């Protein structure tokens, strides 16, 4: 029985179903239990699963590090990091252990952990509440990096993430948490590593994920061309095939992300498109991204974030290149 849900509700329902389905699942993080999370993503879960939903001290290295141990005992840790930037406090545990314990032990100890966290700007929050470091995470072998962009996508991807035998960095677009509802099917799994062609088109391919997908769909409405919009959904593994097939068809490509330009995932996608579809490319891969500046505080945040207008410009650049 499907329901019309917001992203935040889809997160909650998925967590509830996975807690129910698998009694190894443990949901924990700062303010996750008694308050139900600062965005209320986990509201009510502690009432129903008091033994597997926990408030933790303010200690992100501890949240990630203890997860490695929980996983070793056979549990499936699903920690929440309150905002993406605070994962940095536990970055060493992520890079040195979560990502590596499988290879360190030749597969004899694994870490099926799903680290949920809100990422990105657009809600006029405090400093360091708006970052998106996906490129850094995708650069760490052993991790999977997943971006839902709608309620149904959230359900399908989070379900797969929690059931995955390998760790997932699950980036939830803060500003879409409550922005719209969508029909969310029951029992919905979307395999990690499969991109989605959101809108088919022939003239240009636009690749966008998370909250930037919404901006892109807005932008596309105002562009006088046939635009194919691809949501990679997972940045590692990255569905190179769907992306390059699209570019082979359109010959032109735009990549959109919130993160600063230099070192962002647009570079990686450009490389893959070059490698697989070079002879089809009629224009350089266009990047529409955040600037190489720290996301400013909110009085200037809107100027930082790519929006429909900048995406339109990017699409036009790609279309007009000769």
């Amino acid at each position: 029985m499907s329901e019309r849900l917001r992203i935040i509700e889809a997160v909650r329902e998925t967590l509830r179903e996975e807690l129910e389905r698998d009694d190894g699942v443990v949901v924990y993080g700062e303010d996750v239990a008694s308050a139900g999370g600062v965005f209320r993503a986990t509201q009510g879960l502690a009432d129903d699963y008091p033994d597997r939903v926990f408030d933790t001290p303010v200690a992100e290295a501890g949240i990630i590090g203890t997860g490695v141990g929980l996983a070793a005992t056979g549990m499936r840790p699903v920690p929440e990091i309150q905002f993406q930037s605070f994962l940095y406090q536990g970055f060493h545990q992520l890079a040195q252990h979560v990502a590596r314990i499988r290879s360190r032990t030749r597969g004899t100890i694994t870490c099926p952990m799903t680290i949920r966290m809100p990422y990105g700007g657009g809600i006029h929050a405090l400093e360091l509440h708006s970052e998106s470091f996906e490129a850094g995470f995708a650069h760490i072998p052993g991790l999977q990096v997943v971006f839902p962009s709608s309620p149904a996508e959230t359900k399908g991807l989070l379900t797969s993430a929690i059931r995955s035998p390998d760790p997932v960095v699950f980036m939830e677009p803060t500003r879409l948490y409550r922005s719209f509802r969508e029909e969310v099917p029951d029992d919905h799994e979307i395999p990690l590593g499969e991109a989605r062609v959101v809108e088919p088109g022939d003239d240009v391919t636009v690749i966008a994920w998370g909250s930037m997908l919404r901006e892109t769909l807005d932008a596309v409405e105002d562009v006088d061309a046939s635009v194919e919009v691809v949501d990679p959904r997972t940045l590692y593994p990255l569905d190179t095939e769907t992306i390059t097939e699209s570019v082979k068809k359109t010959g032109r490509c735009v990549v959109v992300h919130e993160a600063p330009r230099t070192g962002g995932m647009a570079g990686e996608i450009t490389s893959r498109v070059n490698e697989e579809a070079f002879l089809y490319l009629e224009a350089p891969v266009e990047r529409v991204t955040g600037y190489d500046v720290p996301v400013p505080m909110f009085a200037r945040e809107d100027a930082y974030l790519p929006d429909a207008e900048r995406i339109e410009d990017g699409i036009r650049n790609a279309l007009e290149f000769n």
Partner: protein
Amino acid sequence: MPEEESAQFSIESVQVLSEDESVDEELVPSLSDEQLLELYEQMKRSRRLDERAVSLQRRGELGTYAPAIGQEAAQVGSAFAMAEDDWIVPSFREQPALLTRGTPPHKILQYAMGMEEGAEIPSGKGALPPAIPVGSQPLHAVGVGWGEALQDRSNVAVTYFGDGATSEGDVYEALNLAGVYDAQTVFVCQNNRYAISTRLEKQTDAETLAQKAIAAGIEGIQVDGNDVLAVYRVVQDAIESARNGDPVMVEALTYRRSMHTTSDDPSVYRESEEEAEWEARDPIVRFQVYLENRGILDEETKATIENRVESEIGEAIDRAKAGREEIDQADMFEHVYDEMPPELERQFEAFGGEADE
């Protein structure tokens, strides 16, 4: 050995003005009437700023705001004990301390308007800016206290953080390094019982937070954080000690009477009885009664102070709003590097900015 005690420790706790308004006269710090009134006025100023800020936020004029209501004594008392060239290293709820150290209220409001302007340190010293990552700032204060020592200066750094912050490894590293480097640093931990919704009992099994200092081999002491005279006294001693290379951690026992931030609703996780109990222990009321009893504060002075505070904050609000009208979005490109690197310059141009040079 075979089985012997190899080390012993204890934590002291200090109070000067008790909740029933009895006073330990021996412990009363020697402050002039003017100074006592200044303590009072700073607490009032801060309270009023927080109240106005919360309503401004409700009207959409400010972003997320973290009021310090209930914590005024802990902050004003400690900041008042600092000498002119000492450094303040705040986290994000330090309005009372910042005001006491001279930050103009319109700057605090601009910070809450999402403007970096509010975090400028015009002199380039004496303060670090507010910063959001919990527990990350005490290390900076150790660096400051160490740097001052290395340069044979006697200034200390006083840093502020919460009960929740003590769970972060950084805070422990800071305490430990302060001990090793003989850093001229005072750690003021405001134990306001909550980290957002999470009660202190869920942060640690330690019975006091001051005992975190034992792990670092430095002095830890508790003080009634709602007693501005006790805070002043204890932190003054701590600063003196730190000036001589012996860092101290002070746990100020207080209570966050209001919401965590304007995004928070405390009724989800705590009872109004608890809030009422702490309302009765309000630090401003307690000090006010003391001043009245000592005959320092009469109705007229009170009214003068309230009026002054009110008009100052009114002006600060106007000034903050006026500043907001003038901001240049392109500024975000200006302060990332000393010189804008070419890639950033290109982005800046695409943005529509024009290079200064």
